[in-house]
């Protein structure tokens, strides 16, 4: 394909990606060094109430936002360097925590709390997703033809369902006196309230994510299993390999590229964990990095959004994602040159 036609085909897509992904990214980088504060002026307001013999007047000093000629609040933007990053990361608290030999104390800072949860969430769910996906794929592959269609249909439902709704539907099974809570209470013979414990909510969010993503791994592994070389399996059987050995030395190596693929997608997606926090109403107990930014972006009581701090938190989140996908990029570049 000639270079000119190539650009004609790719042009619109690149235009969109530059305008709506690359430029906003530069904007975020820029904003993370600037602090915008609405300009406030002190106004003396005199309020009078009718009285006898003369009016009763009180003078109060109020602070109010300065408005420009269009009636919009004026914002004062100053370059603050790394100040916003410092306010998000809070290095003093970190130093203090380590100095007092109590590293757990840094979890009181929102950013470290979010980072701790996001990383735990990402790496704990990964083996479960791979394991459950592989187990379903193997079971479906070995089951009768008649069972396969319905199982694939049912398995796709948790994957396709809106994440917030899926999370809420599991939340409803546990919240208050939901049926599963009832079941646990019946088994333990004491009163249980699942949603008041941080670790239980965290475990539930991980359970939801495994329930939601395992079907994706299943479908991919199932497609991969169709291409397993029968001759290799049979020669392994002749060599006396047990069922487990065949799985370990023939099937898993064959699926390895797919396992890497699912791992990559899962790492990228669960690093962005967000919907679970909304669905399980968990923001007081557990927050994620994406939630942190979202929270800064929500207008506060006076309608201001902490854009600068959100930008700083965003940039820190980006560093993490670059570290996660860097090995993949390096391998792709090597393959391309080879």
């Amino acid at each position, binding site marked *: 394909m000639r270079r000119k036609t190539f650009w004609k085909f790719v042009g619109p897509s690149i235009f969109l990606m530059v305008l709506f992904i690359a430029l*906003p990214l530069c904007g975020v980088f820029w904003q993370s060094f600037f602090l915008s504060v609405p300009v406030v002026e002190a106004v003396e307001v005199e309020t009078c109430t009718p009285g006898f013999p003369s009016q009763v007047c009180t003078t109060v000093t109020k602070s109010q936002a300065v408005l420009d000629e269009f009636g919009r609040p004026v914002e004062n933007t100053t370059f603050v360097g790394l100040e916003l990053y410092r306010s998000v990361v809070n290095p003093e608290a970190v130093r203090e925590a380590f100095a007092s030999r109590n590293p757990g104390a840094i979890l009181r800072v929102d950013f470290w709390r979010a980072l701790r949860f996001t990383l735990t969430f990402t790496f704990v769910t990964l083996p479960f997703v791979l394991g459950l996906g592989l187990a379903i794929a193997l079971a479906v592959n070995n089951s009768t033809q008649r069972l396969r269609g319905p199982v694939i249909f049912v398995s796709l439902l948790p994957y396709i369902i*809106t994440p917030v709704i899926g999370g809420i539907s599991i939340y409803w099974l546990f919240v208050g006196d939901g049926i599963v809570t009832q079941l646990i209470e019946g088994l333990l013979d004491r009163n249980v309230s699942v949603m008041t414990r941080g670790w239980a909510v965290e475990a539930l969010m991980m359970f939801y994510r495994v329930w939601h993503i395992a079907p994706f791994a299943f479908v991919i592994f199932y497609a991969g299993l169709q291409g397993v070389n029968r001759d290799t399996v049979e020669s392994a059987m002749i060599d006396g390999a047990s069922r487990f050995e065949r799985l370990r030395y023939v099937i898993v190596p064959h699926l390895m590229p797919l396992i890497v693929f699912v791992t990559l997608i899962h790492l990228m997606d669960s690093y962005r964990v967000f919907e679970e926090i909304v669905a399980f109403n968990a923001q007081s107990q557990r927050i994620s990095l994406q939630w942190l930014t979202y929270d800064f972006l929500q207008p506060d009581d006076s309608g201001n959004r902490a854009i600068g701090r959100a930008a700083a938190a965003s940039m820190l989140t980006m560093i993490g994602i670059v570290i996660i996908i860097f090995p993949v990029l390096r391998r792709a570049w090597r393959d391309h040159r080879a």
Partner: protein
Amino acid sequence: MATDTDSRPFGLKLAGTGFLVFWSLLALLPLFWIVTMSFKVPLDAFSDNPLQVILGPRTRDLRGGISLSDIVLVGSVLYCLYRVPKALGRRAVHLFSARRLGRIVLLGAYAACLWLLVRGDGAIGFVILGAGIGAGIVWLLGFSDDADDEDGVLGTLISAVIYVAGSLLVLIVLVPAILPSIDAVLGVLPLGELLTRPLLGATAEHYLSVWVERGFYRNFLNTMYVTAGVTAISLTVGTLAGYGLSRSKSTVAFWLLILALVFRSLPHSVLVTGYLPPFIASRDILQPFWDMPVLGWVLGLFSTTPPTLYGQPLAVIAVLVSINQPFTIWMLRSFFQSIPAELDEAARIDGCSDIQAFRRVIMPVMWPGVVTTGLFSFLLAYNDYLICSLLLNSQNQTMVPSITQFFNSETTTTDQVQAVAAAVSITAPLFLLVMAFQKQIVSGLTAGAVKG
């Protein structure tokens, strides 16, 4: 591995089947449970006893319920309706597509719609909208089959519309009219009373109050608007880019794909941080364009002042399309790569230009890939929470973010059951989607994996 299956010991087979049954139950339970809850009065829906939630005795006493005879009758009617397309479908399609009849019926229906709209019958407008959407779903569900050629599409659509309208008529008007008389007849019989007694408590009141009183239909329309826009635009742009990238082996193409991969992994909140300030201040930022001599006059035809992009569904469509681009490109590229490059070379030797080869030769064989990618674009737009909740205001809100409003206002258990009903309403279209497109979804998931 068929021979392997036969040699497996019975215990392992049983364990495998048992595991699959367990997984299916696990996958279905939360969804089944919210569907059940949404049809009960709050006392039943939040009962301690699971059996009470399913059977709904209080709902039955307060609001009535479904009896065995209802289940049998409605079931058989539904089965008959299900058989109709198979028995009569092809003939109806031929009838409407072969003669001019098709166009006449369509024009008549259009005129009737216009007349109703002018008269301002709001309710009927929604019935028509519902019938249209239903017809689309039925059409997708397989009313059409492989025998459809280009001319058959019109006939298929018209017969689907008529079929859905007829089915609704039967289900909403005819069945409720017949049911009491059948119950009366059965009541005379010795064991008939057992059949006609309500068995399962059920009520649709929560759905009614969510959709009508609370105006959920507005969120539904917004969602339809946003998803349709996102799917259409991202497919158009993505197909072009995917084709270009699949037919180029240059380093530029490689870097573009890697860049797309990096963009795909970005957390969406990072991007929204970048959008919010310019979107809120877009009126000032865009003002210079409106002040330009010629361009300003052209833009002035659309609106006299530059728009504020915050809260505009169109802006959200543009954002979602762009965020979706990396994924769309990767998926379509792997579909294009499965089409041999010899095909476009042959077309070029026959005298086609690049764009002609793409349009006349490649696109006709690409439709399955485009449909699959379209499905995933639809899902992204439909399921999005973060972007819509931050960039849209409450008047233009889509369905998924608006459901959290039900929680914010939750004070009574009735509100909560209404939230459940809203959640089920959001899920129902996805359920139909999986039913209609199971094959495409599976092929789409595996398409990306094969090429890595």
